[in-house]
């Protein structure tokens, strides 16, 4: 066990865990930031997507000891009142079915739009292909990303 000081959503946290603990479980088990989801644990589904210094990252693959001073943003931290343009677009398009994949989808979409504010359909389809939606909401995700891009 070791103490780690983390910067998450603009706040300082201290956790006492083994250094190889993935950020996914630090967030969920130790900080109760449960918006970051477990889907596969092997970097295949994207349900655990967070931002590390603004870049979309799989929390299931990121050991807490690798984080250092980097800024972590989770779904809980992308806006104060849930009114990030991407979140608003998700509500407008009523994207979720079960909803389980959606925080990961939103985190990927935010980072995609930061890098490319006006993506084409193909860029959205490819940019979002690392995030599985088992319920099949892909066409709505695409519409929501386009709506967010326009806002």
């Amino acid at each position, binding site marked *: 066990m070791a103490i780690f000081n983390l910067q998450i959503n603009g706040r300082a946290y201290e956790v006492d865990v083994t250094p190889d603990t993935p950020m996914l479980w630090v967030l969920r088990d130790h900080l109760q930031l449960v918006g970051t989801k477990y889907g*596969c644990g092997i970097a295949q589904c994207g349900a655990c997507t967070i931002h590390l210094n603004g870049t979309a990252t799989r929390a299931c693959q990121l050991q807490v000891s690798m984080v250092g001073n980097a800024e972590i943003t989770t779904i809980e931290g992308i806006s104060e009142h849930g009114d990030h343009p991407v979140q608003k677009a998700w509500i407008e398009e009523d994207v979720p079915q079960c909803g*389980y994949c959606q925080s990961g989808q939103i985190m990927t979409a935010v980072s995609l739009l930061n890098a490319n504010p006006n993506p084409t359909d193909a860029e959205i389809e490819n940019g979002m292909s690392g995030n599985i939606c088992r319920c099949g909401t892909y066409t709505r995700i695409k519409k929501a990303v386009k709506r967010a891009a326009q806002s």
Partner: protein
Amino acid sequence: MTTFKTKVGRRAFIRNISVAGGGMMIGFNWLASCNTSPQKIKELPKEWFEINGFLKIGDNGLVTIQSPNPEIGQNVKTSMPMLVAEELDTNWDQVIVEQAPLDVSKYKWQVAGGSRSISSSWEPLRMAGATARQMLLTAAAAEWQVPVAELTTDSGIISHAASGKTAHYGQMAAAAAQLEVPETVTLKEIKDYKIIGHSKKNVDGHKIVTGQPLFGLDTYKDGMRTAMIIHAPAFGKTLKSMNSEAVANMPGIEAVFPMSVYSDDEPQSSFDTAAFNRMAVIVGRSTWEVLQAKKALQAEWENSPERNISQRLFGRSSTKKYPAGLENTSDHNALMASFDFGDKRLKIFRKDGDPKKAFAQAAKVIERTYTAPFRAHNTLEPMNFYADVTNEKVFVLGPVQTPEWTESSLSRRLGVPKEKIDVHLTRMGGGFGRRLYGHFVTEAALISKQIKAPVKLVYTREDDMTFGTYRPTYSLKYRAALDIENNMTALHVVGVGIPEKALYENRFPAGTIDHFLAEGWEGDSNITTGAYRAPRSNFAASAEQSFLDEVAEAAGKDPIDFRLALLERAQINPVGERNDYDAERMAGVLQLVKEKSGWGSPGTENLKRGVAVYFCHNSYVANVVDLEMNGKTPVINDVYVAVDCGIVVNPDAATNLAEGGTVDGIGNALYGQMTFVAGVPQQDNFDRYRLIRHHESPKNIHVDFVKSDIAPTGMGEPPLPPVQAALANAIYSATGKRVYHQPFINELIA
């Protein structure tokens, strides 16, 4: 307006007399604040008044509606309360929705299965709203000393035109809560609906997009431990021994022990399916620590003997046989392929006319075989459950589609009366049928009982995928006889499967052909299977609608015209009497998809497209798929979906479900499979089990509903089956090659 007796679910309408005098807090689930869903911040009332088991009204007019059924992504948590709110005649903005716990005294059919949530609650939920409205009116009439008949309601406001008096529901709620439930009640005409038929957004939408705790895995409570199981690595094996000591001292580990989930000697429910009854359990402080111990634990496994388990459900008893042995997909395939038409092992399920003679006289015979593998449900949230078992009470909370049957199982296994068991539901990260089988709830409860502490049982993705209640593996073999004028005179179908066949002998095209024969066979297996979104239909549609496409082609007919002609025959002069589909409604969705896709119209000549139509769960769906090939991979441009599911309660949500079923159908038909070697599942995570991804999904999905006054029918399952055949037929149109064996990608890249 139509008057109805309030007989359906009347018990739920009777308020709890003992507390009727005062503010009403009892009988509702206040437990998990995460279950309350105000979409916007609303001012909460000082006092709530329970009008009936489905709703309570606050002194400020706010309404809380209980959503009784499990929410697995089919959106019932929004759509079911809409039914109550419509007849209550309140504003949807004034409604808060709560997930109800299991309560058999109040609610009927608290199951997410068979696409029945809306259809089975269509009457009771509207009546719950209408009786409450009636009681509010009666209370207002008494206070204002005017006849009830002179009162009207609109958006939660009661008005008396003559005197100009008005009041909001909250002002009459205290008095209404004291009244008797009316004997009869009037329900609105469809044309007067203000909520039903008007899209409402997901009541949990805000919580989902902000990552609030909603799902079973999000449960964290004081003193809670984390538990994981280790089950046998192969179907047909079971736990022999384990070295608990070696991992018991690992950091954060608190308990390591073997456990038997069910007792094989006692009758079980048909939903107690569990391949691996004896397993290892590890309990610890945190997920990561338990995972390390799970990796380190050494266990020895032995071959299971044959198990014969007596099962009971809905008063019916049966015996389920799990043979001994380690099974292989190659053996399953060879066994299914060994059945030819008329094989002695087959049983006849339906026979019309004289098929033998018709085939002997045929001008042309077309014969094809279709197969499909086992499939895993792969809900994105793996199986999990929270349990807190004490001497006084059994409390369980989490994602399960069958809370009532789960409670019975817990009662049997723990020897605790049902009154002492509380089953609470979370939102579920997908169901697709997997969470009908609640063995993981019993496992969680047994673990909590053993360690005398609250626990959350968590399956890893690998546990989830290799401990399935899979979709069975199937084969359907067809042959059709055409006469000299290219009329289909006879059809013969052989449906075999392990452990069940996918044969619906009384569905289309039965009833449209003079000479028809349906035969089937089912083999035993120790690989556990269960209901999977649109059970059996999920393969039957794919095979049947692909075959009919070939028959139409052989007959030189347009595939839509060919099907419409058969359906016309079924309407005018059906063969046999047991045909269990409505040919007119089936033709209706085909006509609609033809119109919306512009099938056969100028400008569509170069499109590579396929069509299919199917009926299941009392709904009708037709598809047209347009695609092009990029090398050996299909790029799906447009999918047209025409649906007849009766009245559409929440159109945008129903559209979302139709889109999801379309993607699921295409994804699984192209990529999904579970295979086994010596009982060992060959896929255990998403690197080996291929799920459809964003860039492989259809670019556009166009959903249209048939306008209907018929009471709502199923929506969760019907959109999945036919699109697989429309896809296969479109692949043929693009490549000139037909695909017969799912997952199609294997044939495409071969």
